[in-house]
């Protein structure tokens, strides 16, 4: 596990090191008119021409001290930037993930229990189209129609008035998650404002990502419905409805859980595009900027963080497995 994280950082760090120090220093340069001497001083200062292992070692030592360096793109230390950006991303992911899973499982169950009917074919088309739509294009189209044409669901995270409240000083930021903070501050106007801005990006993600859960639920439901224990339940006198809801679904959800865990991790990483389009200042937008301007500290931090999320979600999935599947629980 730790090995995987170390491996990932080594790989990404090595890629960064492919650039000559002269280019890497450019992110630190504010003034265009620096001369060569000044550049070299900067390279010296940040140790950019040390051997790669030395630089990596310096970085990893910092990580253990909780020092991830300075993000040039965010113009703050990486940790500070993360504290600002992450809640925005988390809020969207936390809203979207349950919606995606519920939509997918619901439609997938419907498709499986109505196999080869119009419902089944309909969900199939929905899924294939969902697979095929480019995230960025769907997002742009949604914005063009809802925001452009009807003036609904603007991009961003808050309206201008909302932002004024946010920075007025009366608004306590307990969790930095806008929805929760609004409730804690008892500002329902803020709550609706924040929710209003979440609808379109969440809808975008549901349309695109529920397809995967749908297809998986369908095939594992079909698998489960064909098992012998379904026949036993039928022979006991269970109704069709109960069999689908209880006997088949419980088994069918086991593979869905794995994918849902990875979905969460995947959504985090996929925020690059969603946040760029909907102009939400989360880690996705930050990463996009960082990657474009080669902000090494920010890139390394985010790669480490997102790989960490992936690894942790794998663990969570294992625990959930044990919860739903008694065969694993005991062994």
């Amino acid at each position: 596990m730790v090995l995987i994280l170390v491996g990932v950082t080594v790989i990404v760090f090595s890629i960064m090191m492919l650039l000559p120090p002269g280019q890497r220093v450019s992110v630190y340069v504010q003034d265009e008119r620096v001369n060569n001497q000044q550049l070299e001083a900067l390279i010296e200062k940040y140790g950019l021409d040390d051997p790669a292992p030395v630089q990596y070692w310096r970085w990893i030592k910092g990580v253990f001290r909780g020092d991830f360096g300075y993000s040039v793109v965010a113009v703050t230390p990486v940790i500070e930037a993360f504290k600002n950006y992450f809640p925005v991303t988390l809020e969207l992911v936390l809203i979207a993930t349950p919606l995606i899973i519920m939509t997918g499982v619901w439609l997938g169950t419907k498709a499986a229990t109505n196999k080869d009917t119009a419902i089944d074919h309909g969900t199939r088309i929905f899924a294939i189209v969902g697979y095929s739509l480019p995230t960025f294009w769907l997002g742009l189209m949604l914005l063009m129609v809802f925001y452009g044409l009807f003036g609904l669901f603007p991009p961003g995270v808050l309206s201008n008035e909302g932002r004024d409240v946010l920075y007025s000083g009366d608004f306590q930021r307990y969790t930095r998650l806008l929805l929760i903070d609004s409730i804690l501050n008892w500002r329902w106007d803020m709550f609706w404002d924040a929710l209003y801005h979440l609808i379109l990006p969440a809808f975008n993600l549901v349309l695109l990502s529920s397809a995967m859960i749908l297809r998986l639920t369908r095939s594992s439901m079909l698998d489960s419905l064909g098992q012998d224990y379904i026949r036993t339940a039928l022979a006991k006198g269970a109704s069709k409805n109960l069999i689908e809801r209880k006997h088949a679904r419980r088994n069918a959800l086991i593979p869905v859980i794995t994918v849902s865990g990875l979905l969460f991790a995947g959504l985090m990483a996929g925020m690059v595009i969603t946040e760029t389009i909907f102009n939400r200042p989360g880690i996705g937008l930050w990463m996009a900027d960082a990657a474009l301007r080669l902000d090494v500290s920010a890139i390394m931090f985010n790669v480490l963080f997102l790989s960490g999320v992936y690894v942790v979600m794998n663990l969570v999935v294992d625990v959930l497995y044990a919860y739903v599947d008694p065969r694993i629980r005991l062994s």
Partner: protein
Amino acid sequence: MSAETNASRTGNQHPRLQEFLFSAKRFLKNPLTIVGLTIIMAFAIVAIFAPVIAPPEKPDDPFQIPHDGWMMEPQPPSLEHPMGTLPQQYDIFYGLVWGTRNAFKIGLLIVLANLVIGVLLGAIAGYFGGVVDEVIMRVTDMFYAMPFLVVAMAIVVVIGKGLTSIVLVLIVLGWRTYTRVIRAEILLIRDKDYIQAARASGASHMSIIMRHILPNSIFSVLIVASMNIGTTMLSAAALSFLGLGSDIGYADWGAMVSEARNWIVGPANARLQYWFVVFIPGFVITLFVLGWNLLGDAARDVFDPKQRRR
């Protein structure tokens, strides 16, 4: 169904060939296949006849979209520009037609390269097991754990923006799926009797892998690959969209959509004024990807024996 009774009916064909022919027949009858094939064929025709459909002004550099002047505001479809123009008056129609060639190149080249790398690594890992397996699979895990888009963006920036870099990056990062799939398949059959028999009779590792293992496990990988052509196209387009592709004026679909970002809202009296900039290039990408996904889905239905008995 015993092979014996089937064989007596259809002549003495090899059972695997027979299974394949049976499946292929089913595949071609599937409406999804027909729609998918039609879409892909249409794109293929456009790609092949690009010089006829949209004659280039500079034949030695056909991927450069011709443009009329430098005006920033996109112009709606007209006789001269049937699908309108991008900022700086690049012709959308021309870009889409020549972009088709790039799309095929991207999709097929990347997936093919991924397949070769992934299948080789997976076959080696699955067949030899032990330390080799451990090392290869841990590296695969690392590639899974990496945030794909972020790493891809960083690499493209390091090696220089452009379509070639995007293709390169997707080759480097995309093989991971196939490794896992082929390894899982091989583990299932590695200890089967016929492999043991081949080994006992002195066949070399290479010939066992090539002649006995791969033919039995390649199908599921090919199904995954057929589903992945579309996904790969989407990743490439996403990278272009994020500004890592070619500069404006190059016939690349993703780069063309990225132009749309600034034109989603028209002036107050005509909100949808620039719809063609947003809609058309993205729609063409969707259609292309949809074609491949339809084929992939139908193929999985028919060729995956586990799926199709249902």
